[in-house]
């Protein structure tokens, strides 16, 4: 039996990598992937705690997250395509038209 702490540590590491990816990478595609990484880190933590506490709530929540993530990717990729068409780039820093 792998101790719970390991799962949590793995989850935390994944999350941190995801955060760093979002913050430092400029390619929108990579940013998306990093976001996915964070979501899955959260999923891992949820499943872990669900097992630990012998409750299905966490498992159910994971399915929600997966669904939302899928939807998000669909919308996000569509946006990405749209941006690429107009700007000819996938650099998120180029898309700053909402500057105040």
């Amino acid at each position, binding site marked *: 039996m792998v101790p719970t702490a390991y799962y949590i540590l793995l989850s935390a590491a994944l999350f941190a990598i995801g955060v760093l990816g979002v913050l430092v990478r400029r390619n929108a595609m990579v940013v998306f992937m990093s976001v996915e990484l964070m979501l899955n880190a959260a999923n891992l933590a949820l499943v872990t705690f669900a097992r630990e506490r012998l409750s299905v709530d966490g498992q159910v929540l994971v399915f929600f997250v997966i669904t939302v993530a899928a939807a998000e990717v669909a919308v996000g990729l569509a946006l990405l395509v749209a941006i690429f068409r107009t700007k000819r780039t996938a650099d*998120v820093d180029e*898309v700053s038209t*909402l500057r105040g």
Partner: protein
Amino acid sequence: MLTWLIWLIPLLPLVGFLLNVFFIRQERAAGLVASAMVVASFLVTLVATFILGALPEEERLIQSVAWDWITTGSLYVPFAIMLDPLTAVMTLLVTGVGALIHIYSIGYMHGDPRVVRYFAYLNLFVTMMLFLVMANNMLLLFLGWEGVGLCSFLLIGFWFERKVAAAAAVKAFVVNRIGDAAFILAMLAIFSNFGTLNFYDLEHQGQVVPGFLERIPEIAGLTFGPAWQPIAIATGISFLLLIGASGKSAQVPLFVWLPDAMAGPTPVSALIHAATMVTAGVYMMARTEPLFVASPTTQSWVVWIGALTAFIAGSAAIAQWDIKRVLAYSTVSQLGFMVAACGMGAYVAAIFHLLTHGVFKALLFLGSGSVIHGTHETQDMRKMGGLRTAMPTTFWTYVVGAAALAGVVPLAGFWSKDEILAHAVAYGYWPQLIILFLTSLLTAFYMGRQVALIFYGQQRDHHYHAHESSRVMTVPLVVLAVGAMLAGFLNLPTLFSGMPAAHLLTDWLHPVLHEEAGKFNLMVALLATAGAVGMGYLGWWAYTSNAAKIKVGGKDPAYHYTGDLWDGMEQAWYVDVLYNTVVIAPFRGLGNFLARVFDPQGIDGLVVGVGRLFGWIAGGLRQLQSGYVRTYALVFTMGAVLILGFMLIFAR
């Protein structure tokens, strides 16, 4: 029967007004209908007065309610009119003189393009004036009061293309409004203290609506105002009414509108600005006499205001060149006599003078109208002279009117003015008596001057061919001249014991004013007559013998002796100038300051400033919105870390 009959009196002219506004388009029809309605109204008044006279003295008060006008909360005001001896006298004057002036107007206004409108206004005026004198409560009186003010505005501004007329019309209305504001305040105070605006107790639908004139003792001793300076309520109310009266009756300090009001057609000046409307203030003071009597403080103000007005206007009348302005200032002066009489408690004398003055001043105005008409719209007396041969009827009637005004025995003015002076002697109003006596000397002088300037000497301007006016204008003149000779006999003093027809008016008004007949004072009468004849002759002599010195556009011969004083009199002691600099100019300045600076920049500046403040704050905050998604993510992450850290450390 009287309860419905008296409604006919104001309604007949009203019908004339409506007909003239909506149906009549021809000059001839307009004049005939308008005059017929007022004549009919006069006849009804005569009948009603005879019926009233047949009643026993204490029952001579007929009230008639048409409908409930204002009913809310404790406020109850009926739309109701009444007929009592005082009202009857006033109504006879209004409809009688009014009818003559209507007829005269047919000739005078002939050919004017807006003559239908003229007669409509005139009818409306008579209606409103009748409501004024017949109202059984203050509020309806006020309806008439402002209604005649409106008609005055319309008629002064009848030739509205003339700038002078337009300005005079607005001035008249606004100055009157100042008095009216005081009148409104007085009504509010009356209602607050008595709970009613009716003059006398009124039985209506089985209930008695109280009247305040019979309840004056209830407010005796009551005061208002700050503790260090309490004011008797009776004084407060009556003083406000006095201000109201001085607006309408052109007293100091509100008399400035009346001379300007001469910009209207001359019959209007005769009817409104001499015989009827301007006497409304005197009527109102006589009507609310118990209130005034209850306040000696106000009464002394009343006497002084009357006497001062009489003198100031009398002196101004001397120095005028415009034929109508002389009469206008003379009217103000005579109104001052009436007001002073009220202040001395001689209400009957005031009403008596009101009546006689109504007749002879209307005569003088109509006479001047005839002169103006016959000289092709000439009003400057320097351009006249020698008209007595061309206009004999006008001349003779004018002389009668002038003599009546000057107070020559036995014409109307003598008796009424004498009664006022005798009263002043009897009750010891010495300083005021002297002023009034001097004024009566001035009166005789300026009438002598006027007659000389118009009718004697040689015609000084030959641009017109003078001619006598038509019959429709001279007949009213003759009728009024007869009236001016006889009106004094309405209230003769007891000249010898056992004299039959003495004090008719005093007796008739006794149920309303409860006054005893004044005593005849031979000394005063002799002095006044001698003064009148002497000064009148002096005025006539001075301007006939110096006729050669009078030039068109030139100075008065008297200017040589009096110098700048004469200018002062010509400008009525610069009261108008004073108002322009002290009231009107600062008011304009204040208005412009508030409208151009304070409102847009002060108040609105504050409002817009609040908006700007938010804009400024937002301008700072928008810098945070860099548009870089990754910056947002960093801030977001740091925020999350901070909150989590906070929870870990503190929220155990």
